[in-house]
């Protein structure tokens, strides 16, 4: 795996904006997304998002904004003017870095690709497109509304409009062979800009796929096949110069998602919109926040109370330590043990590290960072559980 050369001790500060609406619900998706038969009152939602931003700004005075991320849901259903209003509010509320990254998640339909230019005018400088597959039958199976042709067209638009773009694929799909994935990934790499997100299909709780899985109607690859998919993915992306810098994220060195790096480096972020999460540092410890998930409920509460937090607590040092490991070890660059100690208030168990080193699951860099090895990444959850225990 590749490691960004510009390691930062201060991971920075970011804003996450959640747009919870979709045209249809995908059967694998467990994100906070909602389908509405009637048009929503977009202006009211945007105003409420701006209201919540002001609330979060009051908690994060003096922070320098490094990234704004529009996620969902389907934020590419938003009007460019809405995106513009939210970004304007951000500029007023926080100072921002000169190279601030503004990402918007988009679906590759022709209508949405048609908005790319306007999004750029509004201030978006990076899109992340939900391609998911280069196979029409599988797109259908995944519940996607677009075709491969539309995806290709959207990628063309993105490449011409934005300096930076990324797209997502889901692999190890039911019926998919490692061989066909190899071919599909080659196609994808030919189409890629400087960033790719490649997710092995996971059955998430309370999804249609989970129901099918339980009923035995959906088969996932076994451990060995899952590993073969993984190995193939690493092999091809590295050869193409897009190695993994995180479990499922690949980039040309320097082109990593700055926004997501803030999460994994355990930086500060605030989330606005329904079901958005945040983590900020306070003198008492790290503060974890989350908002009401239901869109209309969230709207009503924000209009009345200026914010709709349903979770707001200071994490214990053990909880902070767990989150730090959980997030940080996903990165190829690994973690700084001294920072873990500062966050968790305890040392990593030297015996466990020694045993994981002996098993070849982790490595210590000359600079003293602890990182998961190529052998360790496919079994990262077990490695993290070992270190956290």
């Amino acid at each position: 795996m590749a490691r960004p050369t510009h390691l930062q001790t201060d991971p920075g500060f970011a804003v996450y904006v959640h747009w919870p609406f979709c045209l249809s619900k995908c059967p694998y998706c467990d994100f906070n997304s909602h389908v509405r038969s009637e048009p929503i009152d977009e202006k009211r939602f945007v105003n409420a998002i701006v209201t919540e931003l002001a609330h979060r700004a009051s908690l994060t005075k003096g922070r320098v904004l490094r990234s704004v991320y529009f996620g969902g849901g389907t934020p590419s259903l938003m009007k460019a003017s809405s995106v513009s209003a939210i970004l304007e509010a951000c500029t007023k509320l926080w100072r921002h870095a000169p190279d601030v990254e503004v990402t918007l998640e988009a679906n590759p339909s022709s209508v949405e690709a048609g908005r790319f230019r306007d999004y750029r005018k509004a201030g978006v400088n990076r899109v992340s497109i939900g391609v998911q597959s280069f196979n029409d039958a599988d797109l259908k199976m995944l519940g996607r509304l677009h075709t491969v042709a539309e995806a290709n067209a959207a990628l063309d638009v993105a490449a011409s409009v934005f300096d930076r773009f990324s797209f997502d694929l889901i692999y190890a799909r039911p019926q998919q062979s490692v061989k066909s994935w190899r071919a599909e990934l080659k196609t994808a790499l030919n189409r890629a800009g400087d960033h790719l997100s490649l997710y092995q299909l996971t059955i998430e709780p309370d999804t249609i796929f989970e129901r099918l899985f339980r009923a035995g109607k959906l088969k996932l690859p076994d451990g060995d096949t899952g590993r073969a998919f993984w190995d193939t993915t690493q092999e091809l992306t590295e050869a193409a110069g897009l190695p993994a810098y995180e479990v499922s994220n690949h980039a040309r060195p320097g082109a990593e998602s700055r926004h997501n790096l803030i999460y994994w480096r355990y930086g500060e972020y605030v989330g606005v919109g329904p079901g958005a999460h945040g983590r900020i540092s306070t003198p008492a410890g790290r503060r974890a926040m989350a908002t009401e998930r239901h869109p209309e409920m969230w709207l009503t509460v924000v209009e009345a109370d200026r914010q709709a937090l349903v979770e707001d607590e200071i994490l214990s040092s053990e909880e902070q330590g767990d989150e730090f490991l959980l997030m940080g070890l996903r990165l190829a660059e690994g973690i700084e043990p001294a920072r873990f100690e500062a966050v968790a208030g305890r040392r990593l168990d030297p015996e466990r590290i020694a045993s994981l080193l002996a098993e070849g699951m982790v490595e210590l860099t000359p600079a003293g960072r602890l990182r998961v090895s190529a052998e360790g990444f496919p079994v990262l959850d077990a490695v993290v559980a070992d270190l956290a225990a």
Partner: protein
Amino acid sequence: MVRLENIRNFSIIAHIDHGKSTLADRLIQVTGGLPEREMVEQVLDSMEIERERGITIKAQTVRLEYRAKNGETYVLNLMDTPGHVDFAYEVSRSLAACEGSLLVVDASQGVEAQTLANVYHALDAGHEIVPVLNKIDLPAAEPDRIKQQIEDVIGLEASDALLISAKTGLGVEDVLEAIVHRLPAPKGTQTEPLKALLVDSWYDPYLGVVVLVRIVDGTMKKHQRILMMGTKAHYEIDRIGVFRPKMQEVEELGPGEIGFITAQIKEVADTRVGDTITDEKRPCAAALPGFKPAQQVVFCGLFPVDAADFEDLRAAMGKLRLNDASFSFEMESSAALGFGFRCGFLGLLHLEIIEERLEREFNLDLIATAPSVIYRIILRSGETINLHNPVDMPDPTRIEQIEEPWIRATILTPDEYLGAVLKLCQDRRGVQVDLNYVGARAMAIYDLPLNEVVFDFYDRLKSISRGYASFDYAITDYRAGDLVKMSILVNGEPVDALSMLVHRDRAETRGRAMVEKLKELIPPHLFQIPVQAAIGGKIIARETVRALRKDVTAKCYGGDATRKRKLLEKQKAGKKRMRQFGKVEIPQEAFIAALKMDS
């Protein structure tokens, strides 16, 4: 005090389900021992488990008053006795307190192995025996065939056997008459110094230790100072009485009578069953012969599933032991199972009952390790060690010879299952001593190593004979055997709770079964884990738990941190419940499952 010639002391010998407790109930009812409204079924089986399983564990006694047809009133003391082989020693002491027995046989089922053994015990004790055929009202009853069987198998005259139905009450009056006229009165001299047999003792939460006594000579009174001849302990009787079946205090007990005393005795362990009780100032010349103390033959470790329950388990065992001196426990610690106790039992049923009482009456969740017998290890140095925990086995190079206990088993089975029964005995290293037929039933006598029997012999026997075969055994002797300690190694580390002594010829089969099971039970780790069965340095079976291949969350962003952290917390809590063997973490459930397979 009752005149000797008006006393009859008797016990009832019967197989489980042949109607002993029902007959006892009926005798109590007919003689008016209990008002109608206080009658429950199996009056004498006071423990919950006894009623549920339909078995008698502790000997009980009841004093009945019966006005016979000759106009005389008799005192009839019924000693109810356990039927199961584990409690054979309780049977023998009950028999020692009586002069006669009723042999109750199901009129359709016939004689069973345990009945046989108990009849022989009764004959040894010099009893007169009255055969009684029960369940005569059932269509399947074949009194003539069963009478013939009693004569053939036991060699007991059965032409005048009583035909009754304890359930309907038919013939119960005849039973009472037969007790009076066919069983002898006890002998004894009132003027002699006190000589009484300590038949049994138990702990009563209100009265303390209650001692069941049978007076042979002399009299016993309240406030009398007594001497236990065996333990040399002195006490003053503070209560004396009889069971009718409720406790009823009396002034004194004379020769031939059976009753109870209390004397400020703290625990059951302070009394020795079979001891002779005499007068402190005027002792008798010689003690009664007494009986062999109860022998613990089966051992196993009992561990709390939740380590936090250890102290509760200790307290519960202490309480049970107050009442049952025949089981023992001492602390033991196991790397696999944590802190627990090594316990000794009279047999497998006894083990099961104690385990069940601990779980039920004290609300504990327990793991029992595979049962073991007592091995006699003769060292090259000439020293002999009694070993009941494979973990304590000395280094094989120091061992000259290992001896194991053997039993003589009597098995009665319908002919159609004989083949399977014989095969089971052969498979368990049995040596046939005798085989003959009793009507349509075969009687096989086998010598078997007890260690083969404590595993699942009884269950297997019941299952291959559809429950029709019956089984009884007595420990006979110790014999040298080619026994080896089989260890189970996980990732090269021996797992103490799973090691066992086995016969060399059976080791590989047992070892293979165990490692195959463990392979399924141990979750995959970051590395592959060899699971081996070994005798000394030699591996006899091996399996491998493959390393984890793929286990990584695909998506984890800012909004996932809380949920993923909660999953991690759960995982960490799960790891805390696991037992650590070197680098391998094994869930406790895996041990429970592995041990289940084996017992």
